[in-house]
Each structure stands twice: as C-alpha cells, then as structure tokens.
C-alpha cells in the first residue's frame, strides 16, 4: 500500500509540482489546509515560495506552528522545501527580524552579491551539493552521488548552530548549508521537484523512509 503523505497548503506558492512528483515516487498525496488534519498523517511536506514574514504569520494564524512541532516531536517524518526549510529555523533576517518555528536552532541570512565573483542574487541555478557523512544524510541521499546538481532559487541561506545537522553544503561565494537531516526531519534549500531525476530520487528516499517507518510502527 502506498504511504499517505500530507502537503501543507498555506497559500505560499504552487503545490502542483511537489504533489505530482511525490505521487510519481509512490505516495498517496493529500493537500491539507487545517492544522488539525495533520495528526492523521505519519508524514508531512512543507513547501513554500515567497517571503519569510508572511509565511510564518499564516502558519501561526492557522496554528500550523504548534501542529508541526507536535508532529516532529512525535518522531513523524517531515520534509521542508525551500521556504519550508528556512521556516524551521529560530529566526530569519529577511526584511527585518522574524521568529521562525525554532525546530532547528540557527538563523537565516541574506547572500551578499558580488560583481567581481559573479555572484548574482537570487541564487537561481543548478548547483552542486557536497553530502556530509552523517547517518541521516545517508538516508536522505541514498543512491544520489556526491556533487550532484540540484535546482536552487533563493536569496537567503540557513546557518544551523549545530553543524551536525547539516546533510549537504553548497558553494555560492561561501559554503552554505543546502540541506539538513536529523532523525525524522529532512529539509532542503533546493527544489527536488524541479531537479529532474536526482530530485525525484530524493523524494523517493523520503517516501521509502515513510513506508519503512509506517511498517515499523
């Protein structure tokens, strides 16, 4: 049986690609708009395109902040994508200073552009990931080679306090944390749903993990 995965729809960006990609990877996907629906699922995806402040505001208003915390505290699988990755952090410096979900300790900062280094902001391109040696990174990047390209679109990057949560680094003027993996929490700055075969492989790994957890339970 296909594992059921919820995608949180909080009005930040188009969910179609994420949802179709997960279906292709063998999941039954349901879009949820209310926080109380979340307890019915063993796994959830938080996508998102847009600015940090309005996003966290909507999540709080709809009580998704507490529901997500409860979900991850219970050890259930979580995947954050792009803004859904940044929202996990303690605070962001996007347009001021805003508190995030604080599930991962750390901050979200803006890239510095540099004409000399040809660093254009937003960082919008295919870029490589260096996969770390943590056991969780191994789960997340199973069957994906080191230095694989993924598709990025962002102007801010995440800096976790505890470097051990980092699953990949990516070089863009500086070596930034392009994804984290710690136990049941996976999150990436790039868009797996736009990263062709390798992106789909990451989503497959997620679905596989959800499936094995469900059986384990």
């Amino acid at each position, binding site marked *: 049986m296909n594992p059921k995965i919820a995608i949180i729809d909080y009005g930040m960006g*188009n969910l*179609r*690609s994420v949802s*179709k*990609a997960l279906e292709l990877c063998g999941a039954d996907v349901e879009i949820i708009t209310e926080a109380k629906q979340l307890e019915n699922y063993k796994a959830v995806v938080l996508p998102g*395109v*847009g600015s940090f402040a309005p996003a966290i505001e909507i999540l709080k208003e709809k009580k998704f902040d507490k529901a997500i915390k409860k979900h991850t505290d219970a050890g259930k699988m979580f995947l954050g994508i792009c803004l859904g990755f940044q929202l996990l952090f303690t605070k962001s410096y996007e347009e001021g200073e805003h508190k995030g979900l604080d599930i991962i300790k750390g901050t979200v900062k803006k890239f510095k*552009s540099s*004409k000399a*280094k*040809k*660093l*254009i902001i*937003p*960082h*919008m*391109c*295919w*870029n*490589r990931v260096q996969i770390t040696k943590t056991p969780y990174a191994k789960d997340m990047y199973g069957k994906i080679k080191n230095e694989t*390209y993924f*598709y990025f*679109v962002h102007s801010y990057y995440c800096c976790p306090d505890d470097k051990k949560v980092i699953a990949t680094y*990516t*070089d*863009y*003027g500086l070596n930034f944390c392009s994804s984290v993996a710690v136990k049941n929490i996976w999150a990436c700055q790039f868009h797996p*749903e*736009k*990263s*062709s075969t390798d*992106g*789909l492989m990451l989503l497959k790994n997620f679905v596989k993990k959800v499936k094995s957890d469900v059986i384990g339970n």
Partner: protein
Amino acid sequence: MSSAIRVIPCLDVNAGRVVKGTNFIDLRDAGDPVEIAKRYNKEGADELVFLDITASSDKRDITFEVVRQTAEQVFIPLTVGGGIRTVDDMRKLLKAGADKISINTSAVENPQLISSGSKKFGSQCIVVAIDAKRDGKSWSVYTHGGRTKKNLDVIEWAKIVVKLGAGEILLTSMDRDGTKDGYDLELMQKVTNAVNVPVIASGGAGKKEHFVDVCNKGASAVLAASLFHFKELSISDLKKYMRKNNIEVR
C-alpha cells in the same frame, strides 16, 4: 563559483501543438509538447522555454493546459512566454505550473508590468526577452515578433529592465537567428557587461563551438530550437563537449 551553465531548448507552441521544427522520428506524437518536453528532460535539458505563438486569444486556454500537463510530468524549471499582457496572465500561468514568465512586447509597451510582476512574484519569476537587431554600431529593440522597430537601444533597455526588477534577460540576436553562424558575441558581451542578472543567449547556434564561445562572453544559459528539434545536436553530446572545454554544465 560552481553554478552550471544551463542548456535550454525552446519550443514554439501554437494552439497546444509544437509547430516549429518537429522532426522527431521515434515519438508517437511529433507535435505533442509534453512528449517533447519529456524527451529533452531525459537528454539532460536544464530548463524548458515554451513560447506561445497562438494568434487567437480564445485558444490561449489550451496553452495553460499544455503548461499544466508538462509541469505534472516533467520536473525541471519551465519558462513560458508569448502574449502575456497583465499580472493576472502571469498569475494564471504560474498557477498552471510555470516557474518563470517571459515578456517582450508588453514589457516595452508597458514597463510597469516588469515591476508589478516582480513585486508580486519575485524577480526570479520575471524574464524579459529582448529581440535585438544591429543598427550601425549599436543594436535596436524590436517587438511584435521582430516586426516592429522601436527607438530603443538594446544596452539601455537591458539596464532599464533590470532596474525595474527583471530577474533574467533572454537575449535574441535577430541578425543571427536561423543563420547557424553562431551567436552575436559582441552583443552578448556588451549586455552581460552592462547588467548583473543572468543572460540567456539566443539566436544563431549552429554547432557545438558556438555554445562555448558565447559562454565565454558571459552568457549564463544557452538557448536553441531547431538544432535540437532536428536532432542535429543532442543535448547530451553538447554538454559533453562543453565540459571538455571547461564550461561547467550539469
């Protein structure tokens, strides 16, 4: 820095069918944009550009459907251009699954469209396409698919669109388009020097060397249509060649 140069095939779509240079032999449906998109994805395309050349506005809904179906089956970034006049047009296409919107004539006629689109959806969403034709020592901007000459210098226009919030420029040399003589390198160099957003080179690609030449002039992405459509060059072979010539590709 390690971001890769993008290789982008461009598909002209008319009323839901690919119309230019569809010569795929082993496809069930030669003119089906979704099938062609899938094929290019398999070959290693980094992004796809759909140019909607549907003349009648009542058939535009078909384009939304094409974008929707492609985005559901092909998981790479999708840029859609042609006939987009309002922020609402942009919203509809993004909702259908486009990642970026390319505007040309409407940007010249109404530059505010660039800033309002960029404010609404982010600069990464807004691509301004510039059709350039040499005019003595400089280049002039053309609109309406190259039919109307504007009293506008390409370099100046490029700077303006970036200031207004364009996240990317799709630069086509009309002099070179269809000639296979290579991209207009001088034009490319001038524009990439003038702006700090990615520039997609278009018009004139005829062989592998041309792609390498234009990357060395500062292009962030290379676009071609017939060369890929007629299978004169496969994307995977092109990328192999580029890699051998020290151009970073995925």
